[in-house]
């Protein structure tokens, strides 16, 4: 009998718990008409960033993003001018392959590409997910970003010949190996850090 009463009591408690929620406001949003504001760090589609004044791409065709990509979603095609400097021919991102890990963004030292907070890009065709330079640049026009301070003409000029001198004609994969063949266990100072943010806000929010 006692068991029965406690059973009934607990059923009623359950009913009241759901009843309590009946009058509360919904926690969901009506998606297409009402949208969530994405956090600043949210990783959506990959876009190419352009210089705010000149409108030119920030990309220097250093190929770091392409190498960082775990799914080979980025494909960069380039020409070389007479000095051996790379000129971007086509920057292709296959968003169908992209796994949105953000490694390309972290690999980039020139704020050339970013994972924007945009996310609505579904298509009916798989081919339409392959974006080329012009579309990537167009979508990335209004994406805010901070230019890294190190991006100066002198620094670029200084960095570039070093790479070129090492292996001007070889594929980029080997240049990086040659450049950074140091003791792997130790963190090395002169190498590019994987993230820019590490430097900018250490200990923030503490």
């Amino acid at each position: 009998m006692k068991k029965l009463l406690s059973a009934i009591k607990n059923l009623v408690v359950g009913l009241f718990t759901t009843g309590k929620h009946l009058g509360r406001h919904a926690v969901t949003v009506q998606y297409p008409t009402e949208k969530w504001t994405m956090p600043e760090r949210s990783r959506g589609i990959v876009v190419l960033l352009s210089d705010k004044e000149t409108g030119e791409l920030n990309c220097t065709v250093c190929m770091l993003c392409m190498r960082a990509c775990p799914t080979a979603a980025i494909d960069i095609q380039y020409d070389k001018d007479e000095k051996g400097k790379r000129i971007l021919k086509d920057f292709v991102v296959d968003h169908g392959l992209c796994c949105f890990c953000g490694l390309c963004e972290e690999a980039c030292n020139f704020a050339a590409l970013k994972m924007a907070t945009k996310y609505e890009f579904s298509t009916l065709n798989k081919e339409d997910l392959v974006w080329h330079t012009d579309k990537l640049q167009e979508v990335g026009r209004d994406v805010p970003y901070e230019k890294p301070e190190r991006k100066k003409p002198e620094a670029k000029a200084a960095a570039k010949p070093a790479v070129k001198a090492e292996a001007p004609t070889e594929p980029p994969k080997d240049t990086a190996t040659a450049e950074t063949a140091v003791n792997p266990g130790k963190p090395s100072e002169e190498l590019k850090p994987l993230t820019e943010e590490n430097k900018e806000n250490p200990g923030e929010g503490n």
Partner: protein
Amino acid sequence: MEIAGIFKYLYEKLASTGLSQAWVDIISYSVAALIVFGFLAVVALFLVWWERKISAHIQQRFGPMRTGWHGWLQTIVDMLKLIQKEDITPATADRPVFYWAPIVAFVAAFMAYVTIPFGAGLIVSDLNIGILYIIAITTFTIISLLMAGWGSNNKYALLGGMRSAAQVVSYEVPMVLAILSVVLFAGSLSMVQIVESQAKIYQWYIFRLPFGPIAFIIYLIAGTAESNRTPFDLPEAEQELVAGFNVEYSGMKFAMFFFAEFVNMFTIAAIGTTLFLGGWQGPWLPSWVWFMLKTLALVFVLMWFRWTFPRLRVDQLMEFSWKFLLPVSFANLIIAGWMKYSKWFNW
């Protein structure tokens, strides 16, 4: 605001046109059937929407919002969609059985409304065995579920059909015993007389201590089981049997099952109102408004159950019915009988 008068007036008009009595009866009953059917169609559509809204609000969602004000057109749109869908019959199905199952479910669900009094005088036919008729008719639903389960030639569907047969048969017994205690008190099987016997609020059978509330709770539990709703929704237990008996149904046939389910729920609530909550009786408002208010309140309780409780297992379901509900309802019937024939409680 009493609309029973309108019908009486129309009936008299029809009778005075000089038609023979047989024709007058045929016409008036057909019209009444059509009105009840239309009314129930609207009610079922409304209940589907209401259930979705209640579940949404309990779960802090919005539910349907796009079609009309708070999505009130949603069910109509869904129905239109289901009508357009291809009607698939599995290759190995038992065709006639598969075909007739939703129709039986549909018809059985609507036939109960012949003897339900929607208001003072608003009853299609006041049979003197009204409640017995309803019990007999609602049991028809099992046959349709069994037919659907068998005809689909699908193991999940068959399991669902078997479960529903076992479940409805076992819950029929305590339900009838609970109803019997009311009948015992009212001294009549006629629905109208049962309602008239609870004219004052203290005469409602739910307030007749001690047997009333117990009978009501037994009725509610058994009714939930009869209409296959959580926590007794085993025939269509999604997580075990995918969709149970209606797993192979699509399009309009599925819609008919769906419709029948909600009409059945309304039936359970309507009978509960009639037997325990004084039917159409109530002050100030017209009788049919009272009836609807009470019935919808009961429907809300059923929905509330559904969105709160987990589901019982099939053997526990049987145990609960035969080992708990049945003895309690027998004891309750004895108490009711004793109360009826002792002078003190018989108000």
